[in-house]
């Protein structure tokens, strides 16, 4: 890992919705640090042939350094990390996490904070809320979920936040009218979205159409790396060739070959692992590079992106 990992012990596991489990983590040596709302950690789970490493938002109170809490939604179609967390991790088990990093912090200059959560996307906002309340900030939470699978913490949130909390259970036919919600906001509002890609894309589209400034629209979408076609990558500095099979990410293949690539989120968001490409076509799957940078075709985010052809030459 690029950062020193922290050994943690799982001190509590709670089923907070039919598909979501919450894990309480305690530091084995010393104490955790306080963190900023919106932070995530990457959890490393022992597995063969290589560990699972997934990013999860911290949902505990950012000022509470006694424990960290994360919530994991079971993803049947995933590469196994969430299944591992649900089926293999027991109270008392030890895991490694990275120190918290934040790519989704509130903008404290906002006149109003509009939080839009979809399903397990509620997690970063669980850490926002105590801090928003301490600061006396103006905010609203709009929480979209499916009653039979997600919707964790909704009763607690409704009880604590009252009229600042809006719940939408799609299975009960409750729809959030994004157009109306976003059209009717005061100057100085910032909107934060965490949830499925469709929700993020929907909000981005509506806010653009309504003339919102793009810098007031914040979102976090960790891309779970998706499989693809196998390819080869040539490392220009050493002349070595590394094979990347369809189920493995470029970053993992490089790690397996003991090539050190600085990285952080492993989800195409943070930009740490950006690597120069000298030749070959790229299938960009990240959220970090701009359209212009993609167009240039001379860099790749190896944590999620792949070659679109059979071969890449990279500057490593």
């Amino acid at each position, binding site marked *: 890992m690029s950062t020193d990992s922290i050994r943690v012990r799982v001190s509590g596991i709670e089923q907070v919705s039919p598909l979501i489990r919450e894990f309480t983590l305690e530091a084995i040596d010393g104490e955790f640090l306080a963190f900023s709302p919106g932070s995530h950690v990457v959890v490393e789970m022992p597995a063969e042939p290589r560990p699972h490493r997934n990013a999860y938002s911290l949902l505990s109170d950012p000022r509470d350094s006694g424990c960290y809490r994360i919530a994991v939604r079971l993803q049947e179609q995933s590469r196994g990390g969430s299944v591992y967390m649900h089926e293999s991790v027991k109270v008392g088990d030890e895991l490694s996490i990275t120190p918290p990093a934040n790519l989704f912090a509130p903008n404290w200059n906002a006149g109003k904070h509009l939080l839009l959560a979809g399903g397990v996307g509620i997690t970063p906002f669980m850490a926002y809320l105590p801090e928003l309340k301490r600061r006396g900030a103006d905010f609203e939470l709009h929480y979209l979920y499916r009653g039979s699978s997600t919707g964790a913490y909704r009763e607690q949130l409704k009880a604590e936040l009252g009229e600042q909390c809006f719940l939408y259970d799609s299975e009960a036919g409750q729809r959030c009218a994004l157009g109306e919600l976003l059209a009717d906001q005061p*100057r100085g509002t910032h909107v934060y979205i965490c949830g499925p890609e469709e929700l993020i894309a929907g909000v981005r589209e509506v806010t653009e159409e309504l003339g*919102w400034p*793009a*810098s*007031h629209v914040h979102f976090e979408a960790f891309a779970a790396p998706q499989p693809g076609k196998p390819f080869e990558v040539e490392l220009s500095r050493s002349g070595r060739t590394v094979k990347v099979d369809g189920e493995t990410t470029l970053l993992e293949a490089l790690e397996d070959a003991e090539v050190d690539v600085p990285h952080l989120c492993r989800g195409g968001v943070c930009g740490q692992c950006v690597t120069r490409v000298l030749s070959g076509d790229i299938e960009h799957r990240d959220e970090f590079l701009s359209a212009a940078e993609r167009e240039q075709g001379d860099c790749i985010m190896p944590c999620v992106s792949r070659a679109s052809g059979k071969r890449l030459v990279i500057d490593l």
Partner: protein
Amino acid sequence: MQIDPRIKSRPLYDPVVIRPKAKKHLFIGAGAELDALYASLPQEQCIRVAGGADGLTEALRAELDKVFETLPLASAVYVCGSEGFMWDIRNLSLAAGLADEQVQMCEPTTKERRLFCTHCYEITEGVTHSPQACSACGRLLLVRDHYSKLHGAYVGVQINAEDPADIPETEELV
């Protein structure tokens, strides 16, 4: 890796274009560029505020405070005037809840610079040469190209702190 010789903190002024999705367009100052944009929009979407030739006066500030109160979230501000004045308007806009990309500035109407003294924190207006004596503390300041958006001013640092008797030649600023 190539080193970009430009000063990254010195603002560049791109051509001002209409923000197409804005519901309200606020034009501040005078200038042909603004006139043309103003004329291209339906009048009910526009607010025009004259002034700015004397900077952000008390009266103009009071007028703008009232106007900003009426602006919706989807607004656009277009401003023309001296560089310092335009950044004053940008800072007012941000304080009113607008974002940087909602404020567009024309090419400054003058090369005169506002200078911020890093020693006494006072402002000297209308600076055309470097070094320039600070209007408040009198120190002879090197006028850097480094721009403070917060102060809407170039940063000035004493050029002869080691030996105040050493008076370098002055150069005209571009």
